C-alpha cells in the first residue's frame, strides 16, 4: 500500500473511488450519463433561485401579456425574450421548470423517505421479532397491496383536504402528496427488509451479538440494517422515479400541486392543453425534463441493482 492512501484524508476517498461499485460505475457509460443528468437536474432544482431568470412563484413579477411567448423570440406586445418561452400565465418556462422540479424532487425524495422509513422499520420488526407482530404488519401490507395506490392517494387527498384548515391548504397539497405516495409505497420496502432480516437473524454474528447481551434494537440497527441496505437502496431509487411520475399522474386527476406553485406534473397537465394549439414548448420542455429525470433515475436504479448484486456480475 502506498503511504498516501493510508493518510485518513485520502484513504476514504480513494477507497470509495477504487471500490467495486465505483469501478462498475466507471465501466458503465449509461450509469455515468444518467448520474450526470440527474446531478445537473438536482443541482438546477436546488440552485433554482440563483439560476432561474425569474421567480415564477411570485405573482407580482408576472406580466400576463408575456403569455405564450415562443422560445427565444420576442413577445409580440412586450418585446421580452424568454429562452424556453412562457406559459399561459406569462411565466418563464425555464424558471418554472427549475422551480417545479424542486417541488417534484422534494415530493419524490420525501415520499420515498417516508416509505423507506416506514417500510424498513416495519420490515425489520416483522422479520426480527416475528410472531403476532409479523402477522399484523404483513397483513396490513397485504391489505395495502390490495388497494390501488392511485385510489389510496385520492382518498388521502380527499380527507386531508377536508381536515386541513383553509389557510394551510396552499401548502397542504405537497404534504398530502408526500403522505399519499409514501403511504402507498412502503410495502415493497417492508417485504424486502423482512425477507433479508429473516436470513440475517440466524447468522452466527447476530446470534453472537445476542449472546453477549446486545439489546434487540441495537442488534437490528447495528447488525441487520447494514446488511439489508443494498436492496433498499435499489428499491428507493426506482421508487423515486415512480413517486415523481405518480405526482404527475395525480395532478392530472386534480389532486396535485396547485397551479400557482406548479410541480413538473402540474406543468405537464397544463401544457397538454396546448398540445393542438401550437404552443408546444409549454408541454415539451417540462415533459422532456420529467422524462430525462425519471429515465436517468431509473437507469441508475437498474445499474445499481446489477452492480450491488455480486452474483449478477
Amino acid at each position: 500500500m502506498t503511504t498516501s492512501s493510508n493518510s485518513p484524508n485520502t484513504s476514504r476517498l480513494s477507497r470509495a473511488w477504487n471500490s467495486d461499485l465505483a469501478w462498475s460505475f466507471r465501466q458503465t457509460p449509461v450509469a455515468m450519463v444518467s448520474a450526470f443528468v440527474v446531478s445537473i437536474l438536482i443541482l438546477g432544482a436546488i440552485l433554482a433561485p440563483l439560476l432561474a431568470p425569474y421567480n415564477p412563484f411570485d405573482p407580482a413579477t408576472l406580466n400576463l401579456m408575456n403569455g405564450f411567448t415562443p422560445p427565444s423570440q420576442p413577445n409580440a406586445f412586450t418585446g421580452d425574450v424568454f429562452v424556453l418561452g412562457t406559459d399561459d400565465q406569462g411565466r418563464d418556462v425555464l424558471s418554472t421548470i427549475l422551480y417545479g422540479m424542486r417541488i417534484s424532487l422534494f415530493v419524490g425524495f420525501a415520499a420515498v423517505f417516508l416509505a423507506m422509513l416506514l417500510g424498513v422499520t416495519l420490515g425489520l420488526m416483522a422479520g426480527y421479532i416475528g410472531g403476532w407482530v409479523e402477522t399484523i404488519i404483513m397483513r396490513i401490507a397485504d391489505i395495502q397491496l390490495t388497494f390501488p395506490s392511485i385510489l389510496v392517494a385520492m382518498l388521502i387527498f380527499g380527507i386531508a383536504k377536508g381536515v386541513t384548515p383553509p389557510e394551510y391548504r396552499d401548502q397542504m397539497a405537497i404534504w398530502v402528496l408526500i403522505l399519499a405516495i409514501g403511504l402507498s409505497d412502503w410495502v415493497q420496502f417492508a417485504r424486502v427488509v423482512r425477507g433479508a432480516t429473516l436470513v440475517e437473524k440466524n447468522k452466527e454474528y447476530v446470534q453472537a451479538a445476542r449472546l453477549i447481551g446486545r439489546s434487540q434494537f441495537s442488534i437490528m440497527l447495528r447488525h441487520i440494517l447494514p446488511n439489508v441496505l443494498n436492496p433498499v437502496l435499489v428499491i428507493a431509487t426506482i421508487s423515486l422515479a415512480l413517486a415523481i411520475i405518480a405526482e404527475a399522474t395525480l395532478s392530472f386527476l386534480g389532486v396535485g400541486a396547485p397551479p400557482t406553485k406548479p410541480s413538473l406534473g402540474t406543468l405537464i397537465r397544463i401544457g397538454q392543453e396546448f398540445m393542438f394549439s401550437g404552443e408546444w414548448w409549454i408541454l415539451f420542455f417540462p415533459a422532456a425534463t420529467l422524462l430525462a429525470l425519471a429515465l436517468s433515475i431509473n437507469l441508475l436504479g437498474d445499474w445499481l441493482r446489477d452492480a450491488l448484486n455480486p452474483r449478477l456480475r
Partner: protein
Amino acid sequence: MLKQNSKRRLTSVLMLSAAMVVTGFTAAQADTLRWARAGDSLTLDPHAQNEGPTHTLAHQIYEPLIIRDMSGAFQAALATDWAPKADNPNVWVFNLRQGVKYHDGADFTSEDVVFSINRAMSENSNMKELLSSIKEVRAVGDYQVEFETNGPNPILPSNLTNLFMMDKGWAEANNAVDVQDVEGGETTYAATNTNGTGAYRLVSREPDVKTVLTINEDYWGRNDFPMDVTDIVYTPIQNAATRVAALLSGEVDFIQDVPVQDLNRVSSTDGLAVKTAPQNRVIFLGMNMGAADLKNDNVEGKNPLADVRVRRAMSMAINRDAIKQVVMRGQSQPAGMIAPPFVNGWTADMDASSKTDVAAAKALMAEAGYADGFSIQLDCPNDRYINDEAICQAAVGMLAQIGVQVNLDAKPKAQHFPLITNDQTDFYMLGWGVPTYDSEYIFNFLVHTRGSDRGSWNGTGFTNTDVDAQIVSLASETDLAKRNATIQSIWNVVQDEQLYIPIHHQVLNWGMSEKVGTDVSPEDDPKFKFFTMN
C-alpha cells in the same frame, strides 16, 4: 325492463351498423350529425333538472310553448301567439298550435299544457322556481290556455322557454305523473323514456356514453325549418383535448365547448370551421364585504373588503384586456357590470366602466389604510367556466401588483359552489347566466339580502333594505318605463358599491365541419332543426 333496454340497444346498433356499411367509418352520412360536448344531459325527465345540457337534449325531443331561436329571439313553438289579457294584467293568454302530435301519435291539447305546468310546479320539480309567480293555469277550450299570476308578470313568457310539454295521457299511463325525485327510491319512466312533440325522437340512450336521435317525419314544422339533420349521435367527451382531437380527426361533426387555445387549430384545419357568438354569461369575482372579519386574511379584527375603496382598487388592478388577449385568446368581452348585453337593464356605459389603473388603485389602497396590502384567499372553480382557473391565476398576479397577496384555491365546482351559498368564502369567482334576459333575475339572486327565497347566491354579505324593496317591487311592476327606471337605480347602487368585480362576458365557440350551417345561440343550446347540412 332490462329486456326492453337491451332490445332497444340492439336495434340502434343494427341501424347504426347499417348506416356504417353504407358510408364507411369516417365519412359521415350527409345528414347524420355526430355531436359532442363536455357534459351529458342528467335526465330525460324534462322537469327534473334546470340545467344547460339537460335542456339542450330535451329541446330536440320536447318542445315548450315558446322557444328562443338560434339568435336568442322568441319564436312561437307549441303556442302560436300569446299576450296578457286586456282586462286583467294578472292573466296571460296563450293560443296553442293545432294538429301537433306526440311521437306516439297522441294529440297535443290544452290539457297537456295544464298538466305539464302543474307537473313543473310540483314539489320534486327543479323548474318550479321559474314558475313561482303562477297562481293557476286554466285550459280554455282545446287550444287556449290562461296563466293567472299572483301579480302582473310582464316577463312570464321568458320563463317558459325551457318548460317542456308532456302528454298527460302518456305520463298517466306510464306512472310518470310525478317528477323524478332523486331520493324517491325508484327511477321514473320519464327519466329514461321520452314522448315529445319535437323534431327528433329518441332512438337509444346510454347516459354519459351515447344518445341517438332520429328525425320525426311527422313533425309539425317539417317544412318550416331546414331539418337537414336526419340523425343525431350525441357523445359527451369530457377531456377537452380528446374532444378537439375527435373533431380534428373527423370522428365528430360538431362540438360545443371548444377550448379557446384550439380555435385556431380547428379553423385552420381543412373542412372545419369555428363559429363564435357572445354568450349569455358574465364572469366576475365576489367579495365578502359583510363579514366582520375575514376567515383567511392577514388583517385581524377588521374586514378590508368592507371598504369600498379597497373593492374599487381591486377592480382597477384587474387588466381585463390582458385576460382577453392572453387567457381568452380574444374570445371574451371585458365587462363593467355583471349583466350580459342581452339583458334588460344593461347599458353600454356601465359595461365600459371598468378601468385598469394600477397607480390609482395603489393610491386608493393607501387611502384606505392598506398601503402595504393584505393577504386573502381566492376560491375558484376549475371545471365550470371557460379557463376559470387560468383567469383566477391571472387575477392573482394582477392583484399582487397592488399589494394584495392572493392564495388561490382552485377546486371542482361541487366543492366551490357550496362555499358561496354557505357563506364560507371571502373572495370567489362566479359566473351568471340570465335565462330571463332581465336584470330582475340578477338582482334576485346576487344583490338582494340573503334570505330564504332571495339572495341565495349573494355571497357578498351586502344588505340594503331600500335596494331589497326595489328588487321586490320589480316582480309586480307593470309600467315598463317605471320598472326600467327602478332597474337603473338598483344598478347604480351595485356599480357605486363595487359589489362585484366584473371580468368579462363569455364568448361561445362551436367547432364544426364546414358542411354544418348554424348560428351560435347565446344560451349554448343548439336546436338541430335549425341546422343546415351541405
